Every structure is written in structure tokens, then in C-alpha cells.
């Protein structure tokens, strides 16, 4: 008997079986309790509720949803709003974060001190504080529609939100978007081809120049032409409120501002760390090999800084996705607010609704972190 006890393989199998058995017992217990409790409380189960009419009025809708739609459509409203606020905040926070991160490294002590003060402020205060502050402290204190703050006479900011002009007809923008996607594909093809050719022949192709042209110039030109071709619905003051345009509700503006400033503080630290992680010797070694400064930057410094920066940046982007749920605190209709909030109150099916919500976040998150793991594996230093 003791022979088996001291056998490493037997013990390993024993512990693993014990863990599985314990988990199975816990799950059985939980399911039994839950079904018993739900039976006692007379709670409904199943996913039929998704096809019921929702009857819920949502103040910020980008889909064809109306209160007559079913709850599945309501879920889709939540998902789109979550993705839209995440996308906008990620772009703005990245731009702001890079600017502040580079400013933090400036030789000018005033500039780096200001950037440092911003970083230390936003990183050490809860995000919920910023959400509430922007919503109740800033947006609510803005003037009413008649005294709106005009942004270039086309967009107007007041305590009912940000009113922006909107194209009445989307065809030009759809074509522009298609062109941008094609440009992105073209750039990827060029990058792969250029790397292969460099590995085979040593000849360097200016990938950065085509990237600048295809990824920056092409979108700007395409969208400018689309904007010029479209008919615009510009908001105008009629009586006590604005007519026309599209209203970005105060909740959207507040959540966007809070997510952007908060995340920018974290991105700035990542950028600073990434640039500082490339030691001076790398520059010097590149020069010693005869590389010119821009080649040293492109071939030696940036790849190494990116290897340090990309994983934490990705997890910051995932944080923005998860943190968009803070919209629930100010009733911005994102996923948690419309689904775990409104839909749950209407239907009472807590288990199904929370399970669907968690699953959506997990699927998006796993997709992004799967990509991140692939990237990490591809770029990591090879050690023992």
C-alpha cells in the first residue's frame, strides 16, 4: 500500500481526480440548490424571454431598435453601444496617452512635471469618481441649449449632450470605408512581401512610406471626399432646443471623457516604460554596425519598444471594454445597463441574463487575448 503512496505518478493522478470530484460535487450542490430555490420562488427558466417584446425605451440607439422590438434586439443595442464607446475611448486614450507619455520623457522639466502630475492624479483615483465627476460635476453644470458652447458652428455642447451633424445619406461613407479596408489589406500584403524580400535579398523596401500613404493619407482623402459628396443635417437652434443632427447623450459624453482621461494615464506610463526599456547601448550598437539613425530606430529600437508595449497596451484596451460597464452607474445604455439593469428588472431571469452578459465579455476578451498570446509567442526573446 505504501508503495503506491510513495509513487509519484499515483499521487499525481490521485490529486487530479480529487480536484475533479470536488468540483463536480460543488457544481451538483449549486445546481440542486438553485433549481430548488427557483422552484420555491416560482421563477421562470429558459431563453424564451429573448423573443418577448421588450417595451423598454432606450435613449441612445444606433440600431433599428424600438420599444416594440424583442429583448434580443435590446441586447444587440447594449452590445453596439458598448463596442462604440469602447472604440471611441480606445482611439482617444491612445492618442492622449502617447502624447502624455512622450511629454513625460521631455528634457523640459516643466512639461515632464505637468505630464507626471496628470499621470499620478488619474491613476490614483477610482474610475467611478471620474464618471460621476464628468456627469454630475461637468456636463450637468454646462449651460442650457440656448447658451450652448458652439464648436465651429456645426456641433454644439450643452447640458443635454453633444449635438453633432450627421450625413443624411450614408452611401459615400460606405464606399469610403470599403476603400480604407482595401488600403489596410494592401498594406499588410506589402509588409509581408517586403519582409520576405528583405530576408531573401537584403533589399529594403520603404514599408513606412507606403504605410503612411495607405493608412493615413488614403482614409483622410476618402472620408473628406465622402463628406463633401454627402448631404448634411446640421443641428440648428429652434425655440428652446436644437433640431436636426445627432444627439450624443450627456451619459455618452461623460463616460467617453472619463474613460479617455483615466486610460490615457495608464497608456502614458506604458509608452514611457516602452521607450525607456530600450537601453542606450542598442542605439550605439546599431550605429556601430553602420545603420543610419532612421534605420536604427525602425529596425532596432521600435521593434524592441513595441515588444514591451504591445502586451500591456492590449490589456489596457481590454480594460476599456470592461470599464465601459461603468456606464451603468450613470445609466448610459451599454450592455450591463440595458441587459443586467433594464431587461433583468423586466423579466426577472437573473441566471440567464447574467450568464449571457458574462459570455459576451468573455468571448470578446478571449478573442483579443488569443491574438495577444500569438503576438507574444511570435516576438518573445528565446531563452532556455
Amino acid at each position, binding site marked *: 500500500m505504501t508503495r503506491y503512496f510513495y509513487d509519484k505518478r499515483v499521487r499525481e493522478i490521485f490529486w*487530479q481526480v480529487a*480536484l475533479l470530484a470536488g468540483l463536480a460535487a460543488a457544481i451538483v450542490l449549486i445546481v440542486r440548490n438553485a433549481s430548488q*430555490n427557483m422552484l420555491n420562488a416560482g421563477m421562470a427558466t429558459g431563453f424564451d424571454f429573448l423573443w418577448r417584446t421588450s417595451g423598454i425605451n432606450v435613449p441612445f440607439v444606433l440600431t433599428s431598435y424600438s420599444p416594440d422590438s424583442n429583448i434580443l434586439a435590446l441586447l444587440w443595442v447594449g452590445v453596439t453601444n458598448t463596442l462604440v464607446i469602447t472604440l471611441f475611448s480606445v482611439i482617444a486614450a491612445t492618442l492622449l496617452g502617447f502624447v502624455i507619455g512622450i511629454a513625460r520623457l521631455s528634457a523640459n522639466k516643466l512639461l515632464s512635471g505637468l505630464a507626471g502630475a496628470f499621470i499620478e492624479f488619474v491613476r490614483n483615483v477610482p474610475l467611478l*469618481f471620474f464618471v*460621476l465627476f464628468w456627469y454630475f460635476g461637468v456636463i450637468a453644470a454646462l449651460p442650457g441649449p440656448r447658451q450652448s458652447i458652439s464648436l465651429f458652428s456645426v456641433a454644439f455642447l450643452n447640458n443635454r449632450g453633444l449635438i453633432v451633424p450627421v450625413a443624411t445619406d450614408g452611401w459615400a461613407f460606405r464606399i469610403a470605408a470599403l476603400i480604407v479596408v482595401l488600403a489596410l489589406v494592401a498594406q499588410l500584403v506589402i509588409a509581408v512581401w517586403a519582409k520576405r524580400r528583405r530576408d531573401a535579398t537584403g533589399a529594403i523596401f520603404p514599408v513606412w512610406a507606403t504605410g503612411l500613404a495607405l493608412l493615413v493619407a488614403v482614409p483622410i482623402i476618402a472620408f473628406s471626399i465622402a463628406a463633401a459628396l454627402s448631404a448634411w443635417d446640421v443641428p440648428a437652434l429652434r425655440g428652446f432646443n436644437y433640431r436636426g443632427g445627432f444627439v450624443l447623450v450627456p451619459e455618452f459624453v461623460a463616460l467617453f471623457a472619463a474613460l479617455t482621461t483615466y486610460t490615457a494615464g495608464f497608456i502614458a506610463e506604458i509608452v514611457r516604460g516602452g521607450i525607456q526599456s530600450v537601453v542606450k547601448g542598442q542605439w550605439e550598437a546599431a550605429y556601430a554596425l553602420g545603420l543610419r539613425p532612421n534605420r536604427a530606430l525602425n529596425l532596432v529600437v521600435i521593434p524592441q519598444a513595441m515588444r514591451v508595449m504591445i502586451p500591456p497596451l492590449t490589456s489596457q484596451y481590454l480594460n476599456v471594454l470592461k470599464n*465601459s460597464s461603468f456606464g451603468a452607474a450613470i445609466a448610459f445604455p451599454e450592455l450591463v445597463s440595458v441587459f443586467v439593469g433594464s431587461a433583468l428588472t423586466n423579466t426577472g431571469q437573473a441566471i440567464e441574463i447574467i450568464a449571457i452578459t458574462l459570455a459576451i465579455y468573455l468571448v470578446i476578451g478571449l478573442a483579443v*487575448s488569443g491574438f495577444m498570446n500569438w503576438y507574444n509567442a511570435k516576438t518573445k526573446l528565446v531563452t532556455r
Partner: protein
Amino acid sequence: MTAAAIRPVRPSLLRRLRTDYFSTPLDALVSLACIAAIVAIALPLLRWAVINANFSGTTRADCTAGGACWVFIKARFGQFMYGFYPPAERWRVDLAALLLIGTVALSFWRGLPRRALTVPALWAVLLVVDAWLLAGGFGLPRVETRQWGGLMLTVFLSVYAGVLAVPLGILLALGRQSELPVIRLVATIFIEFWRGVPIITVIFLASLLLPLVMPAGWDIDRLVRALVGLAFVIAAYMAEAVRGGLQAMPKGQGEAAAASGLGYWQTTGLIVLPQALRISMPAMTNEFIALVKNTSLVSIVSIFDLLGIAQASLADPNWVGMNMEAYAFSGAVYWLICFGLSRWSRHLETSRKTTH
């Protein structure tokens, strides 16, 4: 040679200003823009918070100077600190906080005998004693958790969730590094699940579903539900912090321990973990800071922590329009706590490098 002659030449203030801030036209422009920005932010802030602020009085009518009405904070101070905890029993909160500070100090005192055993034991005792002091029973009058609130709730919720999360996080990190596939899979799924979902949904999950999965007739306190949810999430993040430390350990340490005949738990407990945890301490402190900030989310399920009680105080008809004062005060308290902790974490990081 006189002393004056060997003193290094120190450039004059004017000269240093010129070389540091106005060396090139661009540099000068940047400096001027920064000065303008600082003046534009600091002056109105100073005017509001100090120069035109109201400090004395008892009601809203005493605030006449136009600036911040700190009278409001003074009148509400007890609530911001203790929530609705009965004033006659507040000494218990103070005592619990003192014990907490004492335990923290003892944990970092190097003279403590057998620290690896006494520190966890101290914390276990603290959790029990403080829970008794705060909740009452066994000779003390009971105080319901819905009367708790303000800063004390923020602090004790963070401490309880954090302290429960550390051992769970260590186990999870070891599980994820385990050579046994089933254990590795279970630990990985657990960690990735809690890290992949927003904390708000976890708090909803805990407060709505935890009562549902308990045997009929069992009732779990609202605050305990939120605590369990927070502890699970933070344990997953702590696990990743500990894994960072485990991965940073040279493989030779574990191999040498195994070669000298130590088993898995001896190798882990005596050789690997003590070193790995020291490496992980800054990362774990950062997770704790994130936890302190995220406890503010419990106000979603009507538990009033510091931020929640500040937000709730805005609804008082006697104190209309105190938004800025309430936010400034609660924000400043959060900032002081989190900034202090992050400085400490940075100190740990630098002191670790010199102790070896």
C-alpha cells in the same frame, strides 16, 4: 588654497533657467505654454478651494464667500468616515483601524520571530477580532452592515477582500504553473474567467445569484456577497502578479531544491515562494490599489462606501449644489490612500534591488 576656490562653480539661477527651460525657441515656447497651463488651472482652483472658500459655520447659509463651502464637509464628516454607524459605537471602528495599522506594522518588522508563520497567523486573528469589533455580538451591541459606510467601509472591504485574495491567489498561481494538466486547466480557467469579466457584473452576480445557490433558508449578508465577489476577482489578478514572480525565478532554484531531496510542498514553501513573493510584492500592491479603487463599485448595489456616501449626500435638500465639494473631498481621500500605496510599492521595488 581657500575653501572658496575649490567649490565647484554653480551656474547662477538665471543661467540655469535659461539652459533648462529656454535653450531653444521651441523649448521656450513649450515652457511658456506649460506656465500658462499651470496658471490657468491652479489659480481658479486656489481661489475656489482656499481664498474664497468658507470654513466656518454650520449651515448652507453660512457659505457666502462664493468659493468652496467646506462647511458642508465639516457637517458631514462623521458620515463620510463612518457612514450610518451609531456615533456611540464609533470607538469600535477606531480601535479596529488601530489594530489594522498595528498588524501592518508588525508584518513588516524584521525582528518578528518566525515571520513566515506568525504573519499569516496575525492576519487571521486580526480578521476575526476586527469582524467582531465592527459587527458586534458576543457582548458588544450588534451593528447591522447596512449601517456601515464611508471611508471605513472602503478600507475594511478592501482589506478583507485583499487578505482573503492573497492565499487564494498564491494557490491559483501555483496551480497555473503546475505540471499536472487537470490542476493547470482548472486554475487557468478560474483565473481567466474572473479577469475577463467587468467587476460590476461580478458584483451583480454575487448579489443576485449567491443567495440563489445557497441551501434554502440560508441568508448571506449583502456586504458579504459583495466581499466574496471582490475577493474572487482580486484573487485572479493577485494570481497573475504571483505568477510573474514565479516566472522571474531562475529555474535552478527549484531544481537545486528538488535535487537536495525536497518534495513539491517543501520546495515551493521553503525555496520558491519566499523569493517569488518578494519579487511579486510591488505587483501585488498595485493590484491592491486597483482593489481599493474598485470597491467604489459596491455603490451600484446600494452599499455606501466613501464615494457612494459622497454621491448620496448630494440629494440632501439642505445642501443643494455641493457636488464639487463632495467630489473634491472624496477624490482627495482616495488619492491620498492610493498615491501613498503606490509610492510604497515603488519603494519596495527599489529596496528589493539593494537587499541582495
